[in-house]
């Protein structure tokens, strides 16, 4: 975003030669996953498709130099400057031999043509990813956009994002809204919630998600944000997804998970299979002597497979051909505390199931 603003300013400022002359090539690591594709994209963005035509080039370097030659203006003394912007720069470093990077940086270093290369990435160690020959051609000019706000600055950001700008059409509404935002930020519970978010992650995006969820509760009937909205939005952000999914399981599946938990406790994390889980479940049924949960083995197998589809259990190795389904070893992907928490929230959980879960010896 910063880059876009700068480029826009540059073009607006210098209306004569430089602004109009500058050619920009924007490449993105996510889209151009290969050097060939990148080269085609460069050709396209420089509008040189008809010049290249059907030529076959021996190497990447030849192709690139041909393109840059073609940019030379009429009097052959100068050529148009080209600015290469590489988004997701670290993904380009994963290409084979890093040819694109090598050639681009080579051209920019050797002053054959006026070329500038700007890379944008979110990895701090991106220089480690570059090969030696590429790294040596890099001018080592880095601009770090690290933001490290304090909590007060964080609160200030919340205020600015939520507040309406001055040029909003309805002035009175804007004034009321901004006043309500001020009172909101001074509320104690709101500050606690924001501090919790600040402690978990300081970056802008997670703040955005929180504010977005919060604003979605504003409507024509209720034109202001209340602390309760922020609390609700925070609860949605911090909800444990797996616990939410555990909430929707049937009782049989829940009993199977508790049996797996007991197996994990007794055997300390060794993988289990369906027969072992069924055995554990049968021990529970024998003790409780109620016939409500006496299901046939195929029904239990279906419940087990449903859990596998939800990826709550995962096979230890993926060779499913040799062993039968009932004997394939699996691991549980849930944590002890997640299961216990989900049990508390489970609707209409039978007491004997709860007691079984909390007993120490299965």
């Amino acid at each position: 975003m910063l880059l876009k603003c700068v480029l826009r300013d540059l073009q607006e400022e210098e209306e004569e030669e430089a602004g109009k002359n500058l050619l920009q090539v924007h490449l993105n690591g996510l889209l151009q996953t290969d050097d060939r594709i990148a080269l085609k994209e460069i050709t396209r963005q420089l509008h040189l498709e008809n010049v290249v035509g059907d030529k076959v080039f021996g190497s990447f370097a030849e192709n690139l130099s041909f393109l840059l030659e073609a940019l030379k203006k009429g009097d052959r003394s100068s050529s148009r400057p080209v600015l290469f912007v590489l988004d997701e720069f670290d993904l380009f470093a994963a290409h084979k031999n890093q040819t694109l990077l090598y050639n681009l940086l080579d051209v920019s270093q050797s002053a054959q043509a006026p070329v500038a290369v700007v890379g944008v990435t979110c990895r701090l160690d991106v220089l480690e990813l570059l090969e030696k020959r590429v790294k040596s051609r890099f001018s080592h000019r880095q601009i770090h956009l690290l933001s490290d706000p304090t909590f007060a600055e964080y609160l200030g950001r919340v205020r600015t994002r939520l507040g309406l700008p001055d040029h909003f059409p309805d002035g009175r509404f804007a004034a009321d809204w901004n006043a309500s935002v001020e009172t909101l930020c001074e509320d104690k519970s709101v500050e606690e919630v924001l501090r919790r978010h600040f402690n978990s992650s300081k970056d802008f995006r997670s703040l955005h998600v929180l504010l977005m969820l919060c604003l979605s509760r504003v409507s024509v009937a209720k034109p202001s944000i209340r602390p309760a909205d922020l609390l609700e939005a925070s609860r949605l952000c911090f909800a444990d997804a797996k616990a939410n999914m555990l909430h929707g399981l049937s009782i049989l599946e829940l009993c199977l998970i508790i049996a797996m938990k007991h197996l994990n406790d007794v055997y300390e994390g060794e993988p289990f299979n369906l027969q072992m889980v069924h055995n554990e479940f049968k021990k529970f049924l024998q003790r409780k002597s109620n016939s409500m949960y006496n299901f046939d083995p195929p029904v239990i197998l279906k419940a087990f497979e449903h859990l596998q589809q939800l990826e709550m259990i995962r096979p230890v190795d993926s060779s499913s051909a040799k062993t039968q389904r009932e004997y394939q070893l699996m691991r549980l992907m849930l944590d002890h505390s997640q299961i216990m928490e989900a049990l508390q929230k489970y609707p209409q959980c039978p007491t004997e199931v709860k007691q079984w879960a909390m007993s120490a010896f299965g």
Partner: protein
Amino acid sequence: MSALLQHGGYEEESLRRVTGQLPCRDVQAGLLLSLMGPPHQYSYPSIFIYGHRSSGKSHVMHVLLKELELPHATVGCVECLSVAVLFEQVLLSFFGCDAASLLPRSPSLSDFVRVYRQQRSQCPSKQTRYIVMEKAELLRDADANLLPALLRLQELVEDNVTVVLLSEIVWDKFRPNTGCFEPLLLHFPDYSKGELQQVLSRDKHPSYSAEFYSSYINILLGVFFSVCRDLRELRHLAALNFPKFCEPLAEGKVKETDAHKLWRNIEPHLKKAMRTVYLREVSSLQWEQMQQTEERDTAAVRGLSAHTHVELPYYSKFLLIAAYLASYNPARTDKRFFLKHHGKIRKTNFLKKNEKTSNHLLGPKPFPLDRLLAIFYSVVDSRVAPTASIFSQISSLVTLQLLTQVSHADQLDAPKYKCAVSMDFICAISRCVCTCFLIHGSRRENRIVQVNGPFTSFLLKENVFFL
């Protein structure tokens, strides 16, 4: 209820229609609607909706998009064997088939974004465009750059587009290692028992009253709720079993309000359904035919599992029993069980670490062919010559997948096998051959011992079962 779905950007009439089609999903629909915002404004670049199967995710999205007439493209990721299908579908829905034909033969993401940008500059969007991807967990198996690019699509194509991912797997399992743009996470909770009752009662039969149908649903939920909460399965079961429920009413034996008699009539039927239709052992057509022929003697339903329909020749049955004994008994006990005069047995407390868990829990062990034949000859009570027909029966057992071959197919002289059937199957088979087996299970070993025939009685320990 309609008060929840009020939004300035959309017509009241269509919102009312939406509420009518989405029972028990008002909260989620309202949240989605407020996140979508007025159609001409940009909304959040990507939204991830997760929840159990049949919790209404696709249904809510589709109803909202159709009734409010927003431009959208629905892609089922199951159909997208290659990304080309995905790209074509999106371009087709938004810009027509001319745009879709602009894509090259095997398009990359770069081509897709380029064509999209071209089309977008020709027809800019006045409303937010939505791309809905169902079963999004399959996107994880595609190229590594596809998922992060889709999450950022709004930024890459510079258009008012939002990608909505629907899945039943949680987002934590999607996140790529190097991070990506985090979508907005929304959870669709499962239906509670009351809500299920409410939704299922909507399919009421025209010739019966609503209370009658909802009492039927109540009984159905009582039987199936602890096992299955999937709305689609329950609807299917409700539709299949309703004629049986109405039978006594049609015959004039009971009145509508006679709940107890109706319950007594339907309950064993539902229990049988759980063993068959729910497990897809019989098809729905077979089930309906069964109900019509009124078999009172509960003849065995011809299910899909092996033990109900495979008829084996005489010696194959013995071979299978011998294979089961070979798989589940440790080799050193063979001498004791299958020889007439086995001499003294030294009690060895030496047990390998794995044998501490019962063999029945760990699964069958492989055994060589010689051992199988040795046990076979001691189990069969008549003299059998080792002809080729015996060996060919072993091969056919492998083809039927009742035995699995563990060794490599090239190894011809000492092949190894494993028994692939359960104890129930063996019990069913041994009943046919009229022998009597003792299953003696202790904590350390499970021994299956044959009692009749040339063997004398053995010492019996605890946990003895007769067949």
